[in-house]
């Protein structure tokens, strides 16, 4: 890249030894964007939203995609730092691995905004190493899903068995959503019991396969919680194939808000979808604009997440906007 752009970082910053939060200059041209993977509807919606918003705000966007690999993303970020963008946006694959790189960017006088998934704030903290974190709350999404399922199964006093379809083992949304869900469930409705918890890799076909087997083994379950919509769609197909009537005898709740899933909510086969809004672009770039202007930023710019159900009409209302 031309050296010219890097000079736009505030002149008081000395690359290599900087210890303070970096402020972007008022002439931001080039924004770098480190995506951790592009492998499903959610990620594409996010990617498109970031790209569109960047364009709308008049920035050049330099993109990388780490294909679900931490080392690749670490390398990507190092490369991006070496390209001297004016601002760096990072959607980290895991909490820990990219934290050191966020700090490295700070040292190189490149301001960072963390997007979608947070970094481990013990290793890199907002307000010092990076400007802020813009994103939803996975744990809360899990809890919202639990609330919806409790409601569907007849309230806190309900007694029922359910199964949980996990996202990819070890991935942070799987861990956080699962944790949020379990915590909420055990405190609010101890009568609802998870009889089986199996991973289906955030994948529709796998969700179908796993559900098909589980419904043979646990024919009496009343509910299914899937860590994402894809797995829920697969599960619903499997339940129907096994002669069940999802929506009536078995209630399904999942997270994301994809078009396919919201459609199922509208048709009544899925009980509720908790939103995990991938369209972070506008929020990210509004935040960036504020940052450039010199406003103080909160440590976490929260993307509020909603719950879509058939009963209250929220699903139908949201459907046109679903991704």
């Amino acid at each position, binding site marked *: 890249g031309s050296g010219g752009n890097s000079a736009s970082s505030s002149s008081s910053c000395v690359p290599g030894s900087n210890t303070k939060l970096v402020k972007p200059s008022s002439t931001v041209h080039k924004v770098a964007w480190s995506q951790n993977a*592009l*492998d*499903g509807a959610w990620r594409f919606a996010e990617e498109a939203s970031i790209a569109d918003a960047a364009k709308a705000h008049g920035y050049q966007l330099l993109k990388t995609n780490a294909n679900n690999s931490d080392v690749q993303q670490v390398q990507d970020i190092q490369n991006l730092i070496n390209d001297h963008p004016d601002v760096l946006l990072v959607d980290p694959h895991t909490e820990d691995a990219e934290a050191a790189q966020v700090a490295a960017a700070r040292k190189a006088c490149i301001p960072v905004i963390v997007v979608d998934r947070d970094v481990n704030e013990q290793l890199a903290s907002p307000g010092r190493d990076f400007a802020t974190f813009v994103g939803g709350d996975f744990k809360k999404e899990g809890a919202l899903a639990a609330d919806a399922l409790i409601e569907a199964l007849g309230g806190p006093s309900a007694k029922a068995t359910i199964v949980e379809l996990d996202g990819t083992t070890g991935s942070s949304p799987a861990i956080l959503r699962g944790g949020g869900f379990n915590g909420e469930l055990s405190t609010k409705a101890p009568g609802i019991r998870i009889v089986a918890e199996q991973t289906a890799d955030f994948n529709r076909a796998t969700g179908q396969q796993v559900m098909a087997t589980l419904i043979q083994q646990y024919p009496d379950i009343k509910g299914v919680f899937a860590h994402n919509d894809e797995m829920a769609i697969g599960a619903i197909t499997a339940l129907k*194939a096994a002669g069940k009537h999802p929506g009536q005898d078995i209630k399904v709740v999942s997270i994301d808000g994809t078009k396919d899933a919201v459609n199922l909510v509208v048709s009544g086969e899925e009980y509720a979808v908790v939103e995990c809004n991938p369209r972070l672009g506008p929020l990210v770039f509004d935040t960036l604009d504020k940052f450039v202007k010199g406003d103080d930023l909160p440590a976490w710019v929260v993307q509020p997440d909603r719950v879509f159900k058939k009963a209250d009409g929220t699903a139908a209302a949201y459907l046109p906007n679903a991704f």
Partner: protein
Amino acid sequence: MIRLEQRLTMLKELRSLRNIGQDYGALIALVALIIFNIIFTRQFNSWISITDLLVHVTPTLILGVGMTLVIATGGIDISVGSIMGLTGILTYLIFSGKLFGIQNIVLGTAVAMPIALVVATLIGAFNGLLVTRFKVQPIVATLITLITIRGVAEVTVNGFQFAFLSAPIVSWLSGNLFGFLPRQVILMAVIVAIFAWLMRATAFSRYLLAAGGNQSAARLAGVPVNRILIIVYAISGLLAGIAGLAYIAFDSAANPVTDGLGKELDAIAAVAVGGTRLTGGHATIMGTVVGAIFIQLIRQTLVALNVPNDIASIIIGMLIVLAVFLQRQRKA
């Protein structure tokens, strides 16, 4: 002379006993697993759980049939997973009108499937061409295809995933015949039957095994080795295409990034567990059927017993090695 006669008949008996061990080794393991299931998992012996097992084993098994042929020629085809991914995307692009602008979805589907299969076959034939004409080692040739074709599938649609619950191909292929026989399973059974017969009765199969057993000798004996190899890789490509169609039908979505990812390993494991030696010159389609079902059943059993994923993958790994090890013992 009498002594010799006696010896010969005795030897023949011994030989047939050994063949039983060879041909049915994987089957014995499968039966053991089924018995385990009947005892320990509820409802295993229902019709639905059997068809469910067969439906889920379909893509792996279709790939496995092609892989058996390729491995019998002494090669390997690791590009099948990528071909699956591309077929799905291509089919989608055509029947959704994005590629040729065909608006009628039924007509679109009718056009899409043959085109996608032809493309899959051509990719396979290209593998064969690399292996024969350019003398590229099979694993390298198909590695190139694996990487490139996956990239092409992603680039053509920029990685987007497409869902199409309403497409006729989906409702048709994922439907049942007579209300209880899944069409996919019938498709699979037909493919298996065709190739099992092919490997038994035809000159093609002998040529294929000869080419795998000793290529230069086969060539000198008048076997058109290059043509056989290209045909075999093309068949593997075609079957990967069919598996790709079965997969999107089952999934009602085409995802260029994840569809078929790593499926080649499942197929190869199925072939090995089924008793086909990976060094070539030998093939058993029915073994592959048993091997594929065996692996799928392990997976389902572990899910049914709610074994956590990490432990499950340890158990799967161990059972695969064990199965192949026992196969080899029988042979030694």
